[in-house]
């Protein structure tokens, strides 16, 4: 099976509920090969529920999610086999060494992994000496690099990155952006969630802003700024006269701090 309409990820009419509370309402979007798609929203807006549904960690109440043409409800293993995931707070068994963790996930995804290949992978992310280190002993940036290697170990068509640069220093963040761009140039589709408007503007081809479980805007970063630059709320949010993506985001989602 291959993806329909050329999309790697198709989300159609997604609804997620927690009891009586509707976390996601009728969310639809698509991500194409070679595209970095950003999902932005304030805390509690429905980003994690949407992402968890795509990851197969949560059963949506209704709606369809297709990864490379496979419906996550009907063919969850096939959809997951086409998806690489970097969770927000990735954790592995603390007793395992980095090399063992990579071998575990290679085994789970059915990827051949000998010592040479493992050494190459770790050299590639400048962590050759980390084979016998535990994941917890690595710095935040190193952990993110290992997590991304594991997410990409089976060369997935869709990569889900959940706030991958939070807590990273500017150098590590730039390095991760370069890796994302390299994945994009290799035709991988990337769905990224982030709270950093700078990051969204720098790497995303298109952005969806989600609030109260609904998509309130979807377009390229520059088109979003152009479209909303005259909105009174956006002008009110502007701090230096020049309208930024952050101003548009605040203008569309409000000034109130979310829990």
């Amino acid at each position: 099976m291959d993806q329909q309409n050329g999309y790697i990820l198709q989300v159609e009419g997604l609804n997620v509920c927690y009891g009586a509370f509707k976390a996601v309402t009728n969310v639809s979007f698509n991500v194409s090969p070679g595209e970095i798609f950003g999902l932005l929203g304030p805390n509690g807006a429905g980003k994690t529920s949407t992402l968890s549904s795509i990851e197969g960690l949560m059963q949506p109440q209704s709606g369809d999610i297709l990864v490379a043409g496979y419906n996550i409800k009907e063919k969850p293993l096939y959809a997951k086999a086409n998806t690489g995931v970097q969770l927000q707070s990735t954790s592995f068994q603390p007793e395992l060494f980095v090399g063992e963790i990579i071998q575990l996930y290679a085994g789970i995804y059915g990827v051949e992994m000998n010592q040479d290949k493992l050494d190459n992978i770790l050299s590639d992310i400048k962590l050759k000496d980390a084979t016998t280190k535990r994941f917890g002993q690595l710095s935040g940036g190193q952990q993110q690099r290992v997590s991304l290697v594991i997410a990409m170990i089976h060369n997935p068509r869709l990569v889900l990155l959940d706030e991958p640069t939070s807590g990273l220093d500017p150098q590590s963040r730039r390095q991760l952006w370069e890796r994302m761009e390299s994945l994009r140039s290799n035709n991988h589709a990337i769905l990224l969630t982030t709270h950093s408007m700078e990051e969204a503007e720098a790497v995303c081809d298109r952005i969806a802003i989600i609030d109260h479980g609904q998509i309130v805007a979807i377009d390229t970063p520059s088109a979003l700024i152009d479209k909303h630059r005259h909105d009174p709320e956006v002008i009110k949010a502007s701090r230096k006269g020049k309208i930024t993506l952050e101003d548009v985001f605040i203008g569309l989602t409000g000034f109130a701090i979310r829990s």
Partner: protein
Amino acid sequence: MQTIIPSSKTVLTALLKADFTTQWRNRKAVVLLLLVPVIILISWKGVADKLGGAFVLSNCITIGLNAVGLMGYSNSIARDRDKGVFQRLRVAPLPSWSIMVSRLLVQLTMILLVTTAVFIAGSNIDKITLAPLGYTLGYMTAISGGAVYLGLGQAIVGLIKNAETVNSTTRLVYFVFIMVGMFGELGMLGEKIGAIVKWSPYGVVKHIISSAMQPGTWDQQTSIALLATVLYAIVFAALGIKKFRWNAR
């Protein structure tokens, strides 16, 4: 591009390798887990003749099984759930059951290790030896009994989400089981408590292991105890599976 789904065997092999490595790295905890029943066995050396070899061995094995299910299994599950280890595994193309099967196979090994440690210590220290059939049936009933405590451990992690609370609860249940179980079995807590202990998860497991080690003593009461063991295992496991959430949040 063709989508490749790894076979269950490949997935299980990878999980087992990781889970056994994790267990090996926690070998100090494993040694402690084995030491408790062995120390009790040594401390009972003087009364082994009076109480009977099967009584002493079955008590010690039951205590070891308690530790495997309550201290080992439930705490490792609670910790990994709390840290998000399961969520990371679940986004991979593997059936959820394979994660638990791998964990349970590690615990099955622990059950066999505890039973073997008690048999070896019993033979070398207390000079308690059994017929080959007694050893074989002893292992089989230890596995059945182990299922009760693994089920109970599963029920606890199903009902309690917080890893710290799971840890303190399992310690409390473990302590109550071994103290009330051991002394109740010996009739030191009165007839009423003795009767309750006899049909408790501690009593029935101890009963079937003891009878299995001396197959000639297997009677109707033992068969009822075996039935009770199976029922306990099913009820605890069903409750644990029904209430279990992969995510602690």
